[in-house]
């Protein structure tokens, strides 16, 4: 019996963590945003405008990811190829929360010189999910 429980414990902990989906990532950003007063949901339109404009700095999101998030991008500085950002064009996008957080932190600092709010991140992901 003890052995059974040990074995069960082993299988349960050895189970790989289920990967997130873009929808579950969006849901998690949403629960973060709901904490802010006046939150009224995300908007793809607002996300698109945010994605395509500069925010005081030299770059916008589209500087590297191009105006079409379903297309391949290119690092504005090193020229390295960047796989498409839109989940419809690249199934790996927004399936790993750690990676999502890492890149939002980096890229928001590069584009806005600060971290993005949950509202901004949610708007952008909502927009990216509309791109086919």
């Amino acid at each position, binding site marked *: 019996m003890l052995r059974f429980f040990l074995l069960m414990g082993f299988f349960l902990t050895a189970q790989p963590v289920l990967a997130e989906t873009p929808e579950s990532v969006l849901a998690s950003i949403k629960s973060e945003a709901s904490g802010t007063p006046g939150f009224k949901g995300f908007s793809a339109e607002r996300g698109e405008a945010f994605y395509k404009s500069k925010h005081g700095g030299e770059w916008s999101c589209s500087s590297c990811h191009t105006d079409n998030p379903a297309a391949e991008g290119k*690092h504005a*500085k*090193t*020229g*390295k190829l960047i796989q498409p950002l839109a989940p419809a064009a690249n199934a790996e996008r927004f399936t790993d929360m750690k990676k999502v957080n*890492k890149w939002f*932190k*980096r*890229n928001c*600092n*590069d584009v806005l010189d600060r971290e993005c709010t949950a509202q901004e991140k949610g708007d952008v992901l909502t927009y990216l999910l509309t791109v086919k």
Partner: protein
Amino acid sequence: MKTGFAKGIVIALLAAGMVMPVAHADDDDDEGFFSKRNKIRYGGENRGKPLQPANINPKFQQECSECHIAYVPGLMSAESWRRVMAGLDQHFGSDASIDAQENQEITDYLVSNASNRWSAPTAPLRITEAAWFKRMHGSHEIPPRVWKNPKINSPANCAVCHPDAVFGEFDEDGLVLPR
């Protein structure tokens, strides 16, 4: 009898040592035991060899190749790598920060595989600032127009001209200048 034998061995070793450095005096890639210690090149700002270790750290490979190629650790001094890794949040104009644990693992890998021929007390942040790099890529070696080729874009793109740069292979034989 015993001391005479030992003396003989010492003399033989000394003789071999005196001949060795002369044999490869002009070979920059020479890894001879004596020449490595005696020959200071590029004012002590020399890259090391071998460049990319066989036991490449997967974290290093993954994280450092996201925006550029994962530069081989032997291109820089240990202190340079420490400085680079301590300033990832402002990495040549971009935020390239990673979590503390990953940072430590990658720093350890870079430091323990850094250049073994770097003796100067300097620690540049850019590979292109090292004396060995400047010497090998100056206008006497590479005409300035080559650098203006849009395919190169930046001297940081080693792999455009050195296709096997990621493995630490920069031999002149494999050089491909884009047209």
